[in-house]
């Protein structure tokens, strides 16, 4: 639920790639020594990143190795691949899968208990100590790139970005018309802002919100507090309480110089900054008390992979500073290793985004939260 925008993109890509994937799954190719079959759930931009930043360097360092990068074709096809790996484990055959990207280890049911996936916590990969503990979700997934919602701002107008949500609210009120966030249903960045605000008015306790605890009686008192906070800042927002129609329109407003700060996805912000569509002085920052919501993509390695040792070598390479620097500079992603391991140049540039927490927010709450927002916050603008 965290990366809805991405999932949507993946979904649309899946329609096009479905056909390709089906033929791949049904294929009868045999794993070849030294050829790593890697299946991707991510979009083509990620596969391009692998072919330009990961593949040449890894192949050069390991002569005789070839990385075979295959688009998995979306969630359903990736699940079918996991099932294939599980079946191979049970029958003791070669799954012809050496690594899977951007999926969780929970499918098919029972795969964890059966030991389908390599447990990274026990392997002692040389770069494992560099990984930021806050980004590790489970021991079978090795996170290698992330995206998080951040404050994106013009440093010329905002010399010191807010460090806490309280400071952010204070800044918004002190600079009327200079801040905008997207409508929650139109851009996840806006959703993350009001979800973070909800966490703020309820004492920054993430455990209050779970996938199955939404009831009107439980939620409404909390929502009431949220509407008070959001209505309180509304007159200080862009145009006295107007909200942008999505992630990109927010960045456009910042680019046009009419606002000084907005809420954006880190990867979109970094791409906009790298391409120069926003002013040179644009920067990003993360809240230090409780960060905005984010998510990391991981790789999984089946324990039965024919080239398992080579796959683990590749996994170790993925979390090396060499690749992680490129995740930031070329992919516009966030590193999964500690910022202190990154190149000094990047460290300086992103000093404000280093995160110690990556909160999530349960999907079942969102429909009620968003509709309540439309009725209680957005409709109060008087023209």
């Amino acid at each position, binding site marked *: 639920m965290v990366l809805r925008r991405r999932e949507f993109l993946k979904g649309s890509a899946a329609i096009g790639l479905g056909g390709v994937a089906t033929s791949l799954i049904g294929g009868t190719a045999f794993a070849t020594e030294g050829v790593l079959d890697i299946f991707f759930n991510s979009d083509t931009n990620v596969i391009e990143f692998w072919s330009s930043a990961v593949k040449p360097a890894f192949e050069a360092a390991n002569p005789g190795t070839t990385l075979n990068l295959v688009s998995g074709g979306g969630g359903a096809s990736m699940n079918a691949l996991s099932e294939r790996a599980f079946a191979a484990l049970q029958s003791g055959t070669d799954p012809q899968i050496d690594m899977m990207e951007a999926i969780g280890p929970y499918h098919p049911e029972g795969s964890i208990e059966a030991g389908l996936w390599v447990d990274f916590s026990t392997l002692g990969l040389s770069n494992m100590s560099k990984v930021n503990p806050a980004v590790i979700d489970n021991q079978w997934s090795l996170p290698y790139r992330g995206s998080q919602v951040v404050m994106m701002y013009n440093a010329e107008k905002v010399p010191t970005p807010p460090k806490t949500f309280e400071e952010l609210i204070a800044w918004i009120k002190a600079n009327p018309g200079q801040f905008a966030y997207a*409508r929650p*249903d*139109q851009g996840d960045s806006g959703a993350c802002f009001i979800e973070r605000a909800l966490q703020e008015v309820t004492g920054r306790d993430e455990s209050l919100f779970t996938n199955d605890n939404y009831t009107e009686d439980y939620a409404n008192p909390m929502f009431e507090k949220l509407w008070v906070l959001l209505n309180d800042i509304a007159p200080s927002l862009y*145009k006295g309480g*107007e*909200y*942008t*129609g*999505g992630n*990109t*329109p927010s960045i*456009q*407003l910042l680019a*046009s*110089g*009419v606002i000084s700060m907005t809420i954006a996805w880190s990867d979109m912000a970094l791409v906009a900054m790298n391409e120069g569509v926003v002013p040179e002085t644009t920067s990003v920052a993360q809240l230090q008390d409780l960060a905005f919501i984010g998510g990391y993509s991981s790789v999984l390695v089946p324990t039965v992979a024919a080239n398992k040792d080579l796959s683990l070598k590749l996994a170790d390479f993925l979390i090396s500073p060499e690749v992680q620097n490129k995740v930031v500079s070329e992919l516009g992603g966030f590193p999964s290793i500690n910022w202190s391991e990154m190149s000094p140049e990047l460290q300086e540039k992103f000093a404000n985004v280093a995160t110690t927490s990556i909160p999530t927010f349960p999907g079942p709450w*969102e*429909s009620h939260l*968003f*509709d309540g927002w*439309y*009725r209680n916050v*957005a*409709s109060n*603008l008087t*023209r």
Partner: protein
Amino acid sequence: MSDTILSADETANAPLVRKRPIGLLFIAAPILLIVVFLFYPAIRSIFTTLYVKQADGSYAWSIAGYLYFFSDGYSLANLARTFWTTIVTMVLLIVVNLPIAMYLRFSRSPLAVFVQVLALFPMFVPGIVIVYALIRYMGPNGLLQTLLELVGITGFQSPYLTPWGPVIGMLWDAMPFTLLVLTAGMSGIATSAIEAAQDVGAGRLRILVSIIIPQIKNSLLIVTALNFLGLFGQAFMPFMLGPTSPEMMGPFMLRTFSTVRDPVQAATQATIVFAFCSVAGLAYVRSIARRRAAEVVK
């Protein structure tokens, strides 16, 4: 004019057309498609808004969804905004396109071809491109504001994210279609009729009111009815260019369905929109029937 219509209606009632079963066979396939893919799901959807699940899990006839819509101030504000946007856009479309259509009809200058191409240009540009281009052009600190400031006009208030945002976007989007229908209507006006009026001393305004407007009445009706249908249900332009609230029915339905996850209420909203649109649809069908009847007379 009214004489012609009366006689036309009478003629249409006469059995002029011979009935041929082979003709019916030709239209059987498209009608079957319409029934299977349009009518059946539409009726099913309307049915779900009336035969709803009760609190105890059973199903019963109920108009609670409609009662809720018409007693909910938020929904009504959205409906009112939809009417406002639709009507304002429709009027502006006629105001902008009628003079162009007249120019194209009566001008013999080679510039007319250029004007026509220019006016039809929006047809070839996808809506999403227009929306982002418009945001950059008329948005705050956009090109328009910069140009205005160059000539000394300051205090420009961008229509982006105001009720006028979608009006401008939809005006651009619906312009080629409106112009095409109007120019087609104009081409039916005989030059001789206008010359005759000029000969007896009619002024330009008199010619417009007494000769041109009556003859393109049908085109105006068609364009108004079809534009109403197109504009009323618009979802994309309103949510990209318009204010967050009140919403137009298009984005409101979309949001109720996908974000609020209340398909029954979304279907109720859609049925209400359908009811309003069917009035425009009826006007269109009547106008077509009239024209066909008039053609039979000729």
